[in-house]
C-alpha cells in the first residue's frame, strides 16, 4: 500500500516537471512567434524609412517626375494627384455609404414591416454589401476599365479611377456608418421625436452628429485604402506624371508611382522615398483613427 503511493507520487512529480517544461517551451514558442511578427513589421518599416529619408528633401517633394527610364525628378504631381483622387472618391462614396448606413439602421426596421417588396430590397441590399466587401481589387479594376474607361468613354482619367475607387470603399463606409449609428442611444431618438421634430430632422440634427466620430473613422479607413490601392488605378487612372488639369485627365497616384519606378526604371532609391512618404501617411492615419476611437469611448463612458 505504502509502496504504491510512493510510486504514484514519483509519477506525478515527473508529470508535473514535464508539464512545467512543456509550458516553458510553449511560452517560448508563442513569444518567438509574436516577436517574429513584430520584428517583420519593424524590419520592413525601418528599412523603407531609412532608405527613403536619404532621398527626401524639398526638391523631391516639390518638383514633378522628369519621366523617362532614368526615374529622375521628384513626386510633387503624384502627391497632388493622390489628394485629388482621395477627395473625389470620397465625394462620390461618402453620401452613398452614409445614406445606405442611415437607411439600414433607421428606416429598414419599419419599412420591412410595411411591405414585402421593401423587405426584399433590404435583404438584397445587405447581401450586396457583403459580396462587395469580398470582391478582389483587380476585379474592381476590370469593372472600372470595362464600364468607365471603355463603355462610358471617360478614358484613363481621375473620374474613371475615383468612380472605381468609390466602389471599393463603399462597403467599408456603409459598415462603419451602420456600426456608428447603432451606438447612438435610443433615448436620443425618442427625445427628439417627442419634441415634435420630424424623422429626417432627428436623423440630420441629432443622430448623425452623435455618430459622427464613428463615421469619420470609416472615412479615414477609406482614405487609407485609396492611398494604398494600386491595382485598380493601374488599369483606370493611366499613369501620366503631369498634373491633371481636370477630372477627365490622367494622373498618377503615389502607390502607382512606386510601382512604375520599381518596374520601369532603375530608380529604386526614388521608389523607396515615395514608399516612405506612403508609410508615414498610413501611420498618421492609423494614429488618428486610434485617437478618434479613444475619444469616442471616453465620451460614451462619460455619459453613462
Amino acid at each position: 500500500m505504502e509502496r504504491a503511493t510512493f510510486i504514484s507520487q514519483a509519477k506525478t512529480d515527473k508529470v508535473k516537471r514535464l508539464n512545467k517544461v512543456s509550458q516553458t517551451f510553449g511560452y517560448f514558442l508563442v513569444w518567438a512567434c509574436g516577436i517574429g511578427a513584430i520584428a517583420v513589421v519593424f524590419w520592413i518599416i525601418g528599412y523603407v524609412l531609412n532608405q527613403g529619408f536619404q532621398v527626401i528633401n524639398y526638391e523631391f517633394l516639390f518638383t514633378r517626375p522628369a519621366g523617362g527610364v532614368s526615374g529622375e525628378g521628384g513626386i510633387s504631381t503624384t502627391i497632388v494627384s493622390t489628394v485629388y483622387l482621395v477627395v473625389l472618391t470620397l465625394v462620390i462614396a461618402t453620401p452613398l455609404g452614409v445614406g445606405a448606413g442611415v437607411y439600414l439602421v433607421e428606416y429598414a426596421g419599419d419599412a420591412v414591416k410595411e411591405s414585402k417588396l421593401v423587405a426584399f430590397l433590404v435583404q438584397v441590399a445587405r447581401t450586396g454589401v457583403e459580396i462587395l466587401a469580398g470582391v478582389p481589387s483587380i476585379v474592381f479594376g476590370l469593372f472600372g476599365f470595362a464600364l468607365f474607361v471603355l463603355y462610358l468613354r471617360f478614358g484613363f482619367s481621375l473620374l474613371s479611377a475615383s468612380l472605381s475607387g468609390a466602389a471599393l470603399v463603399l462597403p467599408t463606409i456603409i459598415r462603419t456608418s451602420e456600426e456608428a449609428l447603432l451606438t447612438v442611444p435610443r433615448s436620443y431618438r425618442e427625445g427628439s421625436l417627442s419634441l415634435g421634430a420630424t424623422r429626417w430632422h432627428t436623423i440630420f440634427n441629432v443622430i448623425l452628429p452623435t455618430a459622427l466620430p464613428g463615421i469619420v473613422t470609416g472615412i479615414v479607413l477609406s482614405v487609407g485604402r485609396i492611398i494604398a490601392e494600386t491595382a485598380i488605378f493601374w488599369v483606370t487612372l493611366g499613369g501620366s506624371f503631369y498634373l491633371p488639369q481636370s477630372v477627365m485627365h490622367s494622373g498618377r497616384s503615389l502607390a502607382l508611382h512606386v510601382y512604375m519606378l520599381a518596374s520601369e526604371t532603375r530608380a529604386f532609391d526614388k521608389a523607396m522615398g515615395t514608399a516612405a512618404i506612403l508609410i508615414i501617411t498610413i501611420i498618421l492615419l492609423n494614429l488618428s483613427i486610434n485617437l478618434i476611437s479613444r475619444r469616442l469611448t471616453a465620451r460614451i463612458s462619460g455619459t453613462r
Partner: protein
Amino acid sequence: MTPYQDQSMKKPLVVEIFTKVLAGLLGAVGLAAVLLAFYLLTAQNLPTVLQQESLLEFSNGYYALASFVVAGLVSMAARGLWRYRNWARMLLLSGLIIFILYYFITIIFMILSTIFAGLTLVPILSILRVVGMGLLFFLMYAGLPLVLVYLLLRVDQYFIESNRQREFIEVTVRYVLLGTALSAIIVVILIFVFTLTEAWDSIQTIGLDTMLLGTIWRPGSIIGTDRAQFGLIPMIVGTILSTFGAVIIGVPLSIGTAILLAEVAPPAVREVFRPAVELLAGIPSVVYGLFGMVVLAPLIRQIDLPRNTGFGLLNASIILAVMIIPTVTSIAEDAFRAVPREYKEGSLALGGTHWQTIIRTILPAAKSGILAGIILGIGRALGETMAMIMVIGNSIALPRPLTNNPLTLFLNTARTLTGNIAVEINYAAGAHRSALFFTGVLLFLMILLVNSVARLLLRSRKEA
C-alpha cells in the same frame, strides 16, 4: 391646425427688408432670363461667344430652353422667398453653395498647378503671390454669395414650412436613402454584367474547356495566325502554390501571435503589439512588393542554384505571408477571446497548467474561428495583385522544380491569375482581352467561394 399657423410671427424690420429686396432681385433675374430666352429665339446674328468650345453642338433653341427653365426656377424661388417659404430659402442656399464650391475648386486647381507642376522648385515669394491672388480672385467672385449664405442662415427662424411640405420631404428622403442603400448591390450587378459580357466573347470563341484545362498561355501570336493559346492552368497553379506557401509560413506565426496576445502577454505588451500588427494591414501592397524586390530577392539569390533569380514563388509566398498575418491574427485572437471563461476555469481547476489549458481546451474551442481567419487570409492572398507582379517573376510557363529536388519548385518563377490580368490588360485587344476578363471572373468566383465558406464558419460559431 392651420398649415401656416405662425404666419403672424413678428419679424424685425431688417429681416423684412433683406428678404423682400432679395426676392425682388431674384424676380428681376428671372425676368432678365425670360428676355434673354426671347432674344435668343428671335435674334438673327448671334454673337459667337455662346457657341465656343462646347462639347456638344447646342443650337440657340437649347439655350433659349435652358433660359426658360432658369427663369422659371428663379421666379418660383423669388415668389417663395417673398412669402417666407422655407423651401425657397433652401433652394437659394444650395444654389449659392454650389456656386461658391465651383470657384473654390477652380482656385485650388490654379494654386496647386502653379506650385506643384514644375521641374524646378518654385520660389517662396511667387508661391505667396499665387496664393494671395487666388484668395483675391475667390473673394471677388464668391464674396457676395458667402455673405448671402451667412445672412440666409441667420434668418432661419422666420421661415415657415407647411405640414404637407414636411411630409413630402420625409417621403422623398426615405426613397433617396433607399436608393443609396441599394447602391452596393447595383455595383455588384454592374460588376457581374460588365465582366461577364466582356468575358463571354472568349467563352464563345476560345471555349471554356480550352481556357480551364490548357497549359499554354501564348496570346502574342493572336494577330494573323491561329496559334494563340489561352490556357489558364499555369496561372491557376501559380496562384495556388503561392497562396499555399503563404499559409505554410504565415499561419503558424499568426496563431502563435494570437495566442500570445489573447492569453500570455501582459497588457502593456499587447498595447504595443496589436497596433503594430494592425499597421501591417494598412501598408500599401506596392511597398511590400518593393521590399521583396530590393531586400528579399538578393537574399534568396544566395541559394546557389542554376536559374535562381531570387524572384519567384518563394519570394511571393514570404510577401503574401506577411500580408495575411494581420487578418489571421486578429480573427484568431477574437476567436480565443470568445471562448467562454468557464472552459478555461474548468481546465485550470482540474489541475491543468496554463499551457495545457491553451492547447487542449481553448485551441479546440476556438477552432472554427481560427479556420475562418485562415480562410479569409487565403481570400486576401488570392486577390493580391501588385506585390505579386513585382516579386513572382511573371513567367507564363508552368512552374517546374529547378533541380531533382522537388522543393526547388518554389525557387522558380510563376504568374498569378491577378498578375496575368494586370500585366496584360492595358494593351490587350479582342479575344485576348476577353480571356483576361474571363481570368477575372474565375478569380472572382474563387474568392466568392472562399469567403462564403469563411462566413458560414463564423456564423455557425456565433450561433453555437
